[in-house]
């Protein structure tokens, strides 16, 4: 069987396995709760207040440009003024919460199979690299779907409250959601690298938390403290502003950063998994 066919077969199995597990119900509930909280938050945003008070559209655009420029710079902010802040906020919150979701969903992707050695039924038939990548992509697909569900709840509130028209909301919402996917992939890859080193799911969970916190400490705290841009590249969220802009150079940097991180961490993960005893 060729490697791609192996990955596809194992990926589909991973998805089915996740959907069948009790975790799926818990995650669906969690998605609904986070989405609902997000929706309530949206109605409290200043822009929503401005819309409700029928503020001048020019004032609105100015307000948005200022808000966006704090994150993506003035030039990119100018191109984003058409997008409702609430919709961008949903994407931002998704990016903020995705490491937590990835930890909760992905921590046992590999370790549960290693713990009970079920993985042995697959390692004698499929390349270990295929097993690893399929599991990683399985977690990525699940997280992406959950984030889409959470965002959809937020978009519904945006539309229902008349904050933005359905077409505008969906256009920008889907675009922002797609922009967050490389970040989700980068986090998933880090989680898989850490989680696949352990045979005990609980240990894997705790270490993934510690690992993610470490990434934040180095990529955000130390990066600011030492004024080091390079340290910031460790933290996938650093690339969020670059990915949501329409500036090709920034988008390229954002993609290079997140995909580079993914290739590096998943490459290391695959190497370690092929070398380890199962």
């Amino acid at each position, binding site marked *: *069987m060729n490697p791609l066919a192996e990955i596809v*077969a194992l990926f589909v199995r991973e998805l089915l396995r996740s959907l069948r597990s009790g975790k799926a119900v818990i995650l669906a509930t969690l998605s609904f709760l986070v989405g609902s909280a997000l929706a309530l938050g949206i109605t409290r945003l200043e822009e929503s207040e401005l819309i409700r008070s029928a503020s001048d559209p020019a004032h609105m655009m100015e307000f948005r440009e200022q808000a966006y420029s704090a994150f993506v710079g003035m030039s990119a902010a100018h191109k984003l003024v058409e997008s409702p802040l609430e919709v961008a906020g949903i994407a931002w919150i998704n990016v903020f919460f995705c490491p937590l979701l990835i930890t909760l969903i992905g921590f046992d992707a590999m370790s549960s199979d290693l713990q009970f050695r*079920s993985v042995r039924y*697959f390692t*004698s*038939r499929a390349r*270990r690299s295929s097993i690893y990548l399929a599991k990683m992509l399985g977690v990525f697909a699940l997280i992406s779907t959950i984030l889409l569900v959470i965002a959809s709840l937020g978009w519904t509130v945006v539309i229902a409250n008349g904050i933005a028209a359905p077409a505008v909301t969906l256009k920008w919402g889907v675009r922002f959601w797609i922009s967050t996917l490389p970040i989700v992939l980068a986090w998933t890859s880090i989680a898989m690298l850490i989680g696949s080193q352990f045979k005990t799911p609980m240990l894997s969970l705790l270490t993934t938390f510690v690992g993610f916190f470490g990434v934040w400490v180095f990529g955000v705290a130390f990066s600011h403290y030492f004024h080091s841009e390079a340290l910031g590249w460790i933290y996938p969220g650093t690339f969020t502003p670059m990915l949501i802009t329409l500036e090709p150079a920034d988008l390229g940097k954002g993609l290079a950063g997140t995909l580079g991180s993914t290739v590096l961490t998943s490459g290391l993960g695959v190497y370690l998994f092929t*070398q380890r*005893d199962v």
Partner: protein
Amino acid sequence: MAAISFRNVTKRFGAKVAVSNVSFEVPEGSAFGLIGPNGAGKTTSFSMMAGFIRSTDGSVTVLDHVPTDVAALGSRLSVLPQDAILPPRDQVGELLVFLANLQGIGPERREKCARDVLEEVGGKDWWKTRCGELSHGMAKRVQLAQALLGEPTVILLDEPTAGLDPRAAHEVREIISRRKRAESTLVISSHNLQELETLCDFAAILDRGQLVAKGSMSELTGAGREVIFQLAPKKGTREIGVVPEAVLAAISGVKRVLVDRDRLIVSFDPTALEAEDVIQSVLEALFASGLRIGGVTKGQGLEKRVMDLTDA
């Protein structure tokens, strides 16, 4: 030609040496036993053959490939791991079809292959049963079924009858015997020495990570050079009678005659005689002396041999 080759293989787990400088070959088409007490290194050796773990030193090859080379070995190597739990949420049929898919069995044959092996292990009614709902014995059979999927050239079986009731164990042995006749190379790791003696043509005996003996089952048990006669007491007495040792020693090709209480052990030159010739000649001499015979066995039996070779 060797289906599996171990050359100076050592496996360490940290400071612990699980297998030390072990070399042996598994002849193609044979049934090969891996024998030894707990901690002997059987499962470690088995796991290296299956590609689950890598050797620290030396080389292991299966059909001239390293065992982790799944692309090269494809569906030619299959494994029944002893302690690997079947994915609990998968239905049995669905799992077997999926594994058949990974083995490269075409979509038109997958389900039939899966159903055939499930029927072969007596589990055709378990198709829709979740693996987590199977009893230990049922799970063992499903584990065996997945190892029999397709037409593997080499089948590795780790403790295939462990934990099974006598009837189930007998049925599993029958299945293995059928595969043996189908000329697959079988490697069986087991504590059940009687089972291995019956099923295997060759074996390696391990103790504390070292290889202490290897060869054909006949060589290991002495079946090709020794016959043991169980002497029975005469009717109504406890007396066995007098063994005509001089007569027996005079049989051409007989090298040694030893009487050990109620056992008569006759060693012979395998190049001059076959065990059957020795049995016939010795029985004639014993009957002529009025002795009664309770039983005859070729060689000492694997159990005795293993007990002699391995430490308590």
